[in-house]
């Protein structure tokens, strides 16, 4: 029988959302649209419209060693062109943000190619070739994995994921890269490292509480689904915990 990944345990909506994001066969719902130029502006790695700087000549122009692995693995567009490796980093609020650092890494590993994600408690960074990065970033920002108020695109100075939200529902950002306008649309006024942009980049309206509760991938007993309510998930984690603890003592079967 062919292996069929289960992606994760759990019967709650949170578990369901986690599986949905991870499963590459599930198409993620597109919630907003952001232009390619806007993505380039937020990332801040190159000027919009400029050529991609390269780290090495295109693969077609350089002599490739006779390597069976290189024959097996097809290079991504960015790798083929010899692009530089660049990054995007997200900070996700614990108040029902639609994705979370570990969840992002799992999702990206299942869905994207040629990436190097880094997972931390409050932020998640993904590095890849510039051309691929822009494509992946667009997907991460336009789909249900993003919320303008509760997810921040922050290259540095990321503090805020575990803090209370501001009165207007925005996650704290020391550098105030994104502001909630009078029209209810969140606009990025700085790029991800905090340099002011020439023009504000709109990323849409914050999603409402009901939508967030139905699309979040974090358990939160106060504002969302409590972890203890998902008995299957708790059982799974307890099993893993028990097995790895016992394994530390190298148990021998009698």
């Amino acid at each position, binding site marked *: 029988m062919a292996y069929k990944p289960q992606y994760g345990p759990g019967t709650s909506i949170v578990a369901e959302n986690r599986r949905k994001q991870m499963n590459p066969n599930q198409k993620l719902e597109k919630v907003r649209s952001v232009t390619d130029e806007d993505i380039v502006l937020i990332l801040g790695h190159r000027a919009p419209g400029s050529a991609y700087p390269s780290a090495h000549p295109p693969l077609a122009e350089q002599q490739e060693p006779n390597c069976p692995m290189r024959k097996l693995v097809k290079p991504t567009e960015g790798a083929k062109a010899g692009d530089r490796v660049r990054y995007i980093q997200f900070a996700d609020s614990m108040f029902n943000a639609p994705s979370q650092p570990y969840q992002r890494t799992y999702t990206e590993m299942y869905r994207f190619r040629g990436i190097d994600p880094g997972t931390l408690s409050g932020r998640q960074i993904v590095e890849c070739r510039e051309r691929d990065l822009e494509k992946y970033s667009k997907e991460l920002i336009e789909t249900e994995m993003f919320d303008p108020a509760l997810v921040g695109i922050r*290259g*540095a*100075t990321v*503090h*805020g994921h575990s*803090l*209370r*939200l*501001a*009165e*207007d529902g925005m996650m*704290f950002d*020391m*550098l*105030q890269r994104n*502001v909630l306008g009078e029209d209810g649309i969140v606009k990025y006024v700085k790029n991800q*490292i*905090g*340099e*002011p942009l020439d023009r504000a980049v709109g990323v849409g309206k914050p999603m409402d509480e009901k939508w967030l509760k139905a699309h979040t991938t974090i358990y939160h007993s106060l504002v969302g689904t409590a972890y203890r309510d998902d008995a299957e998930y708790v059982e799974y984690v307890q099993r893993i915990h028990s097995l790895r603890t016992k394994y530390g003592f190298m148990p021998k079967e009698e």
Partner: protein
Amino acid sequence: MMNASFPQVRIVPFRMLKPDTAERLLNMLTGVSGIRRVMIHGPGLPKTVPYGPARGSPNPHSDRKAIQVGDAEIALRVQVGEVILEVEDAPVIEEIRSICDGFFTGFSYRLQEGRFMKTAPTLVDYAKYGPDADTTLIGLADPRKGESPVIIRTKR
């Protein structure tokens, strides 16, 4: 040595306050007699980007502005997360509670009693202010920042 038995309370709103809201709250609290010291606490909003590739460049932030409390102007350097108060005696706490009950209508808050503010100088204070430091001012400002606390006078 200061009397360490003055009660202290902490107002913790469930949302972090904008400067205008904080200004309204603090102005309502200035009407309460019996508040000895107040500290505004929350995550910092630096004037320049503290680290990362853009380190040192200016950091405009709409929440870092001056507010008018009583007769004094306070330049906010933080997003107001909580307000810590030291009061003369227990009945003042009830007065603060009734003000907060009326003030926080859009979202809730908690009023916690405990010890949230310095009552005696520490080594850092000793190094900065020396042995004869005014103990009423201890713990109200960061000794390394060179800023002094704001004194608010209200009409009685």
